[in-house]
């Protein structure tokens, strides 16, 4: 046995030496390049490649190389890269709890110097700027600000003489009308789990407001709280009423979006990145073929919250080319870059220097909707620590498969949450 261990250790040492040698070789090779790993691919790919090309053209010896990574793969992959010490030089990420988890793990490089020297406080709203600050340090540069709302097929609404609902009752009535006319009211594709979170977020936010939800995200509230149970009950009712497409766990979000485009379903609760899909790949026109409306008000006594992810760019602490990565970050704060990213993704530009006239009418209305909201909320998986978010997203998928088990699912979720937060007392903090 001792001999085996000795050999095993030798093999490990040899393997380690080989890996080290390879890493050194790759380091030497990659030192001149700035690798920018991002998740804007396919329908969401607009803008970033153009900006990289522009940057490389403008900056001698920039050698910025952008690599798109599939969204779901990115989520796991970037963590492994960071954990294994082989991160890219810069990468896109979602502001919120995900960035916080990386900051907690010491895997991001602060960019306070850049923030100050570029006077970025003047460029972004306080809310956005706050989303870039973790543990009192700036770590990310915001490039897009998405808005989660209902996107609907205007032709179907027109056909059945429907108007965007403002109240929950109007929404239910529309669903009933559509259902009666053989049109599935709501499309949802949760094969990758995360699209289900918007329903949980908005049902909870619209019913109880942001406080409980923030506590829940930080481990300060229970998943078995009556408000949470009520939200799940309403969701279950919608499912029972067959307002959703069948078997949503079999589709991803873009397939669900295609139901809207194809007329099989009428609306879907999704982020504004759906604009890139509709405009870019499906040839729909904003305001003509489709439009949006914010999640209807369920309780007029709670503050109005807007929700959506803020896409940002961060520099890993282990980046091999921070010096060349920082100017790239600054470049992405420029108006032209912010506008390009907005055009490509359909999101709003976080920069305040982007004029309203830049946006399409629908985007302007989204901007107005955001302004009308009293709170900007990150979606569930960006608001709670990733392990908890991962469990929660799975819980939502399981719920969609078995809506009646919501209590059991909430209890299990509560256990998972408590398990995480009890092990990490410092994670219980307000964002």
């Amino acid at each position, binding site marked *: 046995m001792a001999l085996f261990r000795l050999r095993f250790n030798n093999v490990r040492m040899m393997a380690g030496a080989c890996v080290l040698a390879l890493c050194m070789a790759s380091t030497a090779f990659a030192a001149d390049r700035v690798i920018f790993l991002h998740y804007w691919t396919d329908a969401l790919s607009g803008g970033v490649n153009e900006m990289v090309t522009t940057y490389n053209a403008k900056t001698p010896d920039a050698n910025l190389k952008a*690599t798109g990574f599939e969204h779901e793969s990115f989520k796991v992959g970037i963590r492994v890269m960071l954990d294994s010490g082989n991160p890219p030089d810069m990468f896109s990420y979602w502001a919120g709890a995900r960035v916080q988890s990386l900051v907690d793990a010491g895997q991001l490089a602060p960019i306070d110097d850049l923030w100050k020297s570029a006077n970025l406080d003047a460029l972004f709203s306080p809310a956005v700027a706050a989303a870039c600050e973790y543990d009192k340090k700036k770590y990310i540069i915001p490039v897009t600000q998405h808005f989660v709302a209902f996107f609907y097929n205007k032709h179907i609404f027109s056909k059945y003489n429907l108007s965007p609902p403002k109240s929950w009752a109007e929404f239910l009535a529309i669903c009933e009308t559509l259902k009666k006319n053989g049109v599935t009211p709501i499309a949802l594709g949760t094969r990758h789990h995360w699209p289900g979170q918007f329903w949980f977020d908005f049902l909870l936010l619209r019913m109880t407001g942001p406080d409980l939800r923030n506590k829940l995200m930080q481990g300060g509230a229970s998943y078995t709280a009556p408000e949470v149970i009520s939200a799940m009950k309403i969701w279950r009712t919608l499912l029972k009423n067959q307002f959703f497409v069948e078997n949503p766990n079999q589709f991803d979000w873009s397939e669900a979006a295609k139901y809207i485009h194809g007329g099989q379903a009428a609306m879907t609760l999704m982020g504004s990145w759906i604009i890139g899909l509709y405009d870019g790949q499906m040839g729909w026109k904003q305001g003509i073929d489709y439009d949006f409306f914010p999640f209807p008000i369920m309780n007029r006594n709670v503050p109005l919250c807007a929700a959506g992810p803020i896409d940002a760019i961060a520099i890993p602490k282990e980046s091999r080319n921070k010096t060349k990565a920082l100017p790239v970050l600054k470049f992405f704060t420029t108006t032209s870059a912010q506008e390009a990213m907005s055009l490509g993704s359909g999101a709003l530009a976080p920069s305040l220097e982007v004029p309203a006239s830049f946006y399409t009418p629908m985007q302007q209305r989204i901007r107005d909707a955001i302004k009308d909201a009293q709170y900007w909320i990150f979606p569930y998986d960006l608001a709670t620590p990733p392990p908890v978010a991962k469990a929660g997203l799975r819980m939502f998928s399981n719920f969609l498969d078995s809506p009646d088990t919501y209590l059991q699912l909430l209890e299990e979720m509560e256990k998972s949450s408590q398990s995480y937060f009890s092990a990490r007392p410092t994670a219980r903090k307000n964002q």
Partner: protein
Amino acid sequence: MNQRTRSLSFKISFAIVVVEVVVLVALGFYYVTKFSDEIDQSSLERLHLPGRLMNSQVLRYESVADKAIMGQLTGGNFELGLIVGADNIVYYSYRKNQVGKNFHNVAPEIGADPIWISVAGDKQRTFQTSDGDDDFIFCIAPIRAYSDAAPFFYLLVKVNSQNTQAQKREMFWLFFAGSLLCVLLTSLALITYSRKLILHPLRRLEESADRLAGGELDQPIDTTANDEVGGLARSFATMRDAIRNQIAQLETVNQELHAKEQRLSAFVNALPDVVLVCDEKGVYKEVYSPQLDILAAQPDEIRGKTAYDVLPPDLAEKSMQVIAKTIRTAEVQTFIYELDTPSGVRWFEARCSLIEKTPQNTGSVAWAARDITNRVMLEDTLRKAKEDAEAANARLVELDQMKSGFLSSVSHELRTPLTSFFGFTKLIKKSFIKLFQPLAEGDKKLETRAKRIVDNLTIIEIEGERLTRLINNVLDLNKIESGRVTWYEIEVSPGEAISQAVKAIRGQVEQNENVELIVRVADDLPMLLVDSDRLVQVLINLLNNALKFTTEGEITIEAMRPSPHVVQFSVNDTGPGLNQADQEKIFDTFQQATLMNSNLSGASQGAGLGLAICRQIISHYGGVIWCDCTEGQGCSFIFQLPVSS
């Protein structure tokens, strides 16, 4: 024949099968190996496919848990799949309970080695394992975020290689069965084809050969096939024709040989010789004899025995030496020996001739022994006769010498009284004419008697002169033949010699008005180294002969030089000439020409020694003399003498 045919058929069939088996085994081995490699390569390709798809972001990581997708991608042998992070944490797995665990803990559950991830590094690797029942292949594919990046994930796919092995086995057996079938069918076809095209024609050819061997040389041979067998048949037919011709020739030769044999047998039987054939050891193989009583023993007793068994020891030893020398030299040896036979002691002359020999000097000889007993006896008789003849000859020589001496003595003794007789005859005649004849004048009777006396005295004088010449000639010839002549050699002018000879006979010429003497001597004739008197003697002798036989006409004496080394003399007359018989013996002793003209009979009479003496003289000086005559047209006597150097 049939056995051989079957054997050839078997050999061809065996060769075809062996060649086909070898070729198909080689091809089978090649293709089985090739296809096995392709199957392995295809399996590996399919095994690597998920990794490539994940690297190109076509396949999601969570697909490793989807057995249907992975099975389709890897070829249906998919066992399990894992996505292991570079931090060794399992991120995706076909078993949910493995997700989040360290690969070191999960690896034993799936039959993997925990170090494989480290060993793989940034390269795609495969590992083969077995659990005793099944063989498995693990493929570890690094997943990168971008090119040149260090892998952040490793896709681990485990497939059961039994299917691959089954495919290989199936492919092998397919090849084996196909090859076997191919061997059987093609061998059957080739064997049938070869039997039809080769063996059957060969069998027909063989039957033809058998019939040919049986003497049926006229039986037909099928030569219609336009292939090698047809060529062989044609060659065979040609050979048959050649054999037929050869047989015909052999029959002819046999007949000739038979005839020769018969002749030879007749010759042998007719031969008076004893013929033996024996080997180098002297062993008699064959014995032939015209008479049995001249053999040392009966032929049956001799055959198989050696010379030592049959002959006396000395003779046997000598015979063996002759035999050995014959074999060694290959030359015919002769040997005369005496042998005691039932018919008495007989002499044999043996000729020993080589029949055959080997490089080791062994072989056989033919021993032909001729009975020469009679010859030996005859030779003895002849030898005795020769001895008698030689004794008689010696006596004859002695007598001849006595005769020569007698003749010389007689001639010499005769010449003295003859000279006296001749002198007194002349004196008497002179005295009678001077003293007594005038006394008879007037008396017719006395005158007639006186005249008759003178005539008789003249006759006595002439005959005396002739007798004197005869005696001189006899003495001359005797001296020459006895070698008692002294020959002088002095330089002599041919013209001077002719002049002396002409002067000597001028008186006789002038006595005959009807004969003219013509002398022709060429200019610048060389000197001759001879005895002048003898040369003149020869010329006078020839001129006398010419005068003797020429009654009218002319006599020509010439000297000329027909060649630089020779001087030629000739005496030509217009006399009666000589017949061919006389020309051949005219120069012999005591020979005279046949008288053609009765008027010359008296003149021509002589001893017949003149030309013999001439020839002796000319011969002594290295010359030649001959006559060139035509009967009735005169005669030419010619001699040539060599010019002195």
